[in-house]
């Protein structure tokens, strides 16, 4: 009996040392300690009973043997079980103190799933971009034509000139800019200058042509240096 007590005390010492070294938690320690203390108390109680019986003159063997036979048979086994159960491998018997929460799925699967989702997301995004981006709207660089029309043209006033019989016209005061649209139209008596070309009002398709068609006399004072311009100066010549 005292052997049991000693062994139990040894186990309790081990428990104490495990607890101090941090091998077992405080919960487990208090749980096992209370269990061992209960056992120790029961052993002490049995010892006390035996002592009382011997003091009363009763043979402790008669009952004691009957009572002790069973525990002593499995004593070693019980000890081994205790040590195995609570010290060496407490997981088996006390699962509720050793429950570790397992993740719902292991990290490898989770990573794989995450990669798959990302791949699908990128694929969907790229496909959406390719099929919805209007590449035509991005190509703005090439010019296809030239635009001549402007809201800031230089206007030319129309002036009627009455010249004397010497048939001299003065065009020098007029502005023939590249944006002006002027043409020379000459009206004359039959007897006067037949040098003027009546077809001067006909238009030309050339943008660089000079539509001014005038007399062959000394009217060259007009500015002929203009480009894409059409002079529209009406000249009335007095034939007398």
């Amino acid at each position, binding site marked *: 009996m005292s052997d049991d007590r000693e062994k139990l005390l040894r186990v309790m010492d081990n428990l104490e040392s495990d607890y101090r070294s941090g091998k077992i938690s405080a919960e487990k320690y208090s749980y096992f300690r209370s269990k061992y203390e209960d056992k120790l108390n029961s052993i002490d109680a049995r010892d006390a009973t035996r002592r009382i019986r011997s003091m009363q003159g009763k043979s402790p063997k008669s009952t004691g043997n009957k009572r002790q036979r069973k525990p002593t048979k499995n004593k070693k086994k019980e000890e081994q079980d205790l040590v195995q159960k609570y010290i060496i491998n407490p997981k088996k018997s006390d699962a509720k103190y050793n429950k570790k929460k397992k993740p719902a*799925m292991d990290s490898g699967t989770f990573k794989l799933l995450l990669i798959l989702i990302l791949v699908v997301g990128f*694929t969907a995004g790229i496909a959406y971009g390719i*099929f919805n981006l*209007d590449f035509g709207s991005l190509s*703005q660089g090439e010019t296809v*034509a030239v*635009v*001549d029309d402007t809201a800031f043209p230089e206007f030319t006033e129309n002036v009627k000139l009455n010249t004397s019989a010497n048939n001299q016209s003065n065009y020098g005061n007029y502005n023939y800019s590249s944006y002006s*649209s002027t043409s020379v139209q000459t009206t004359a008596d039959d007897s006067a200058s037949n040098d003027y070309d009546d077809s001067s009002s006909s238009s030309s398709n050339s*943008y660089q042509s000079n539509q001014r068609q005038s007399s062959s006399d000394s009217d060259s004072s007009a500015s002929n240096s203009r480009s894409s311009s059409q002079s529209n100066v009406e000249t009335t010549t007095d034939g007398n």
Partner: protein
Amino acid sequence: MKNNILKGSVIFIILALFLISTATVFSADNNNSNNDLNILSLSKGGITIEYPSDWGVSKATSNYSIMAISKLDSIDSFGIGQVNVNVEKKPVEGDFYTFVNDSYVSMQKDSSYQLVSAGEVSVGGENGLEYIYTSTEATGQKEHKAVWFERGGQAYVIMYSAPIAEFEDNLYVFDYILSGIQIT
């Protein structure tokens, strides 16, 4: 457990790919059906316009031009866009309204130009002026619609020009451009 997750993932991917391919097929069909007319965008000098794809970016001879576009089938053998829209700007000298009106007062003295109408309009949230006039040019008579507005001391003008016979037919494009113009 792991196998089930893998199977589920594979099925999910196949479904996603199927949905994507279906969507792209429908999208391609829609694009094909709209191939006749795409809307293009052009942005320069703080002005952004949208125009149909049968018009193209052009180079304007005017020094004041910001951007210009021409109708592709109106470009003649000399490369001149007869039907065009030209966006120009010029620093305002004095009052904006006086500045614009003076231009057309001068124009009336030139018999090549005939003022058709003038009035006030709103363009891109700005109050502006609208002038319609005709001009006689070497290639024939053209009609012009100029819409003016002022921004930051600059007079902006968006002018649509076309031969008289084609003016009305293409005016809707100019109206479309004006309705979607963005001024920044």
